């Protein structure tokens, strides 16, 4: 709770905290290489990265929202609803569409717009009505998932326009486009949060909203934008997942939000706002992805794989605590 004041420069401190997970990642790389030489092959590494792209976009969104001192559980349902709605509006009714059969070029814009609107609605309810973010976004999570089932009748959507498939599938210069995209978005996010006034405003609001307001930051507006960006990123994650898996599953995204929080918090993002970096969060994503990959390669029995996975996360946390010697926030 109370931090131990060390007279370290803030920047240096933040950087150090960022690097907390780097030893863990290195350790995992070594373990992976021992488990199976295939692990270090570029194909496998690319696979790991690609499998984490959607998760990492959600983590990007949630991290920004958490830094701003808020909370969004509904991201995981946007991952399903946005593509479902976008696709259902453009495909024929025979393929479980809504029968509107809009031009299929509209699918991608609609998908992103749905995400934006969900974020805007969350922000509206939280900021204008002063409702608790936890409960608004939990309600939204249930509503959106319900809407997806209502719209699709619980069916998977298989007939996808090529534009929807493109992003999750294409390869540029030998790497999946989704990896490039994630890299780019994280770079933009890191730059914006680290070197731009509006990004710094998010930290200020999350750290002390009254102080931020006194300094002239329009905190409501900033937070609203953050929610909209978050929703849009979640929709994009849904788009990538749809392309990668070739269909919009009725349960798409379900259960992801726990992993999203786990990655962010393991990566040093505080649930109390104002603390954490996107680089740290990205490391959190990588750690989880590597653990998963190694467990698969090692062929841990299905019966015990979950227990082992959880145990590794717990041990990683304790190690991170012991090595950095810093208490974490509740």
């Amino acid at each position, binding site marked *: 709770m109370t*931090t131990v*004041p060390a007279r370290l420069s803030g920047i*240096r401190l933040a950087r150090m905290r960022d690097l907390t997970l780097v030893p863990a990642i290195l350790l995992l790389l070594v373990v992976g290489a021992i488990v199976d030489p295939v692990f270090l092959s570029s194909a496998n590494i690319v696979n790991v990265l690609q499998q984490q792209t959607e998760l990492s976009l959600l983590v990007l969104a949630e991290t920004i929202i958490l830094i701003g001192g808020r909370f969004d559980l509904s991201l995981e349902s946007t991952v399903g609803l946005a593509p479902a709605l976008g696709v259902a509006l453009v495909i024929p009714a025979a393929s479980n569409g809504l029968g509107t059969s809009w031009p299929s070029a509209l699918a991608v814009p609609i998908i992103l717009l749905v995400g934006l609107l969900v974020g805007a609605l969350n922000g509206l309810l939280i900021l204008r009505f002063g409702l608790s973010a936890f409960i608004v976004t939990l309600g939204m999570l249930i509503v959106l998932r319900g809407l997806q089932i209502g719209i699709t009748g619980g069916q998977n959507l298989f007939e996808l326009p090529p534009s929807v498939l493109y992003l999750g599938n294409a390869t540029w210069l030998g790497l999946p486009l989704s990896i490039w995209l994630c890299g780019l978005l994280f770079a933009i996010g890191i730059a914006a949060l680290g070197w731009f*006034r509006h990004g*710094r405003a998010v930290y200020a609001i999350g750290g002390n909203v009254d102080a931020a307001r006194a300094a002239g930051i329009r905190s409501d507006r900033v937070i609203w934008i953050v929610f909209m960006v978050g929703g849009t990123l979640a929709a994009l994650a849904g788009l990538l997942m749809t392309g990668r898996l070739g269909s919009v599953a009725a349960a798409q995204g379900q259960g992801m939000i726990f992993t999203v929080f786990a990655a962010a918090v393991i990566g040093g993002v505080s649930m109390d706002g*104002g603390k954490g970096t996107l680089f740290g969060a990205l490391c959190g994503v990588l750690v989880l992805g590597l653990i998963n990959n190694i467990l698969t390669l090692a062929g841990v029995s299905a019966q015990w794989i979950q227990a082992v996975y959880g145990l590794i996360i717990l041990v990683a946390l304790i190690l991170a605590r012991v090595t950095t010697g810093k208490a974490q926030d509740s």
Partner: protein
Amino acid sequence: MTDATGASTVPAVEAVHTSKRFGATTALHDVSMSIAPGSTHALVGRNGAGKSTLVSLLTGLQSPDAGAIAFDGKPAPPVADRSAWRRRVACVFQRSTIIPDLSVAENLFLNRQGGDNGSLVRWGALRRKAAELLQEYAVDVDPAARAGDLGVEQRQLVEIARALSQGARFIILDEPTARLDATAIDRLFGRLRALSATGVTMLFISHHLQEIYSVCDTVTVLRDARHVLTAPVADVDHDALVAAMTGEAVGLTEVEARPPVGDDTRVALGLKDLTLHGSYSGIDVDVRAGEIVGVTGSGSSGKVALAETVGGLRRPTSGTVSVGDAPVPPGSVPAALAAGIGLVPQDRHREGLIPLLSIAENATLPIAGSFGRFGYVAPGRLRDTARSFIDRYDIHAEGPSAPVSSLSGGNAQKVVLARALSTAPSVLVLINPTAGVDVRSKESLLGAVRAAADTGTAVLMVSDELDDLRHCDRVLVMFHGRVVAALPAGWSDTDVVAAVEGVNR
């Protein structure tokens, strides 16, 4: 409108018939005030009189329910236009507006990290600018440090530097000195006088009336949300000012000398070779039953850490604390309580009070076990006890079940004191007990401390305020972790100041 000298007579800032209510509370009722350009205007009043509320109107953080604010004769900008407000007025708020997880440099230039319009942040340039600013105001802080790691005083200095640096021609300081030591206050005043000389207008809020006399030219008094008087400070003497604030025409009583505590009185609190690395070392102090011992020193003297050690909040590296003859297990508040030590901690917001709980519960936390068997807290007995505290310590509140968050600073502090005294301790440790407390409340607070001492409680009082220390039987002065002087009663102010500055070494 110009007067004979050609200077503008349009007030730099004006509040016209402003009122503000919070639910059932009227915080301001039809208050008007105008501040002449270039003047240093004092705003005084008891805790809860409405000073901070007026500040929030003048800084545009809240809009008045009725009435208006004007700058230079022109209506104030709309509340939403924060940058227009910030061009007109800068403020050191009473509540900290430091963001702990950001660096000092960034806190200094919050929301203008890249200059006033730029949005790209150049960290190197920002740190250099911050370093220059800090140097200009003689604040010895690393601009790259995490603001949350700073001490209370340093944080306050950062806030002041930030407000002064914004280039506004009107600056509000809401109790800027409550957390500063004498030297820092002197430096601040030097700075304020220099600014004033350049024509900057200032509104200064303080409960230290002598500060009003030393830096301000005009004073406005608020009482119970109403405007009472505005006059040049030269025209109101200390007693008149207090009378205006309290509505009672009584002069402040001189501090009554206490009968000396005899050498044969038993030692109630004994500190033997107490050391905490990095804070203080080799402290040997005996406090006799009924004796009030003051401890003072500059910010880094280790006085607060020493008191916190006695209270059980910190564990010393070596040495012992004993009450009577029995050593107290170190580093444990429950052990300290059991040994009969009561503590008023330094920061009532951070470690003094639980804002959502009632006055009754806050005041009786350590004795909650005494209201019934098996830990049962009988509501009737709880309320009765709390009522008796409210009477005894003169706490102004709606009743024992009001949440402490609804109290003004002085009354909240009395709740903390009531809590420390609730266990009828044989040793009472106080840290800055009167910070931010108005004159009247200060008197009653210190009166309660003296009353406790009169019944045989040994008191260790850490304070920077000479007014507090005057109540002590002797005053220990600490410098860099050691006791460098012990002044028996009858010291003069200069003795203390010299010792605090380490001059007599």
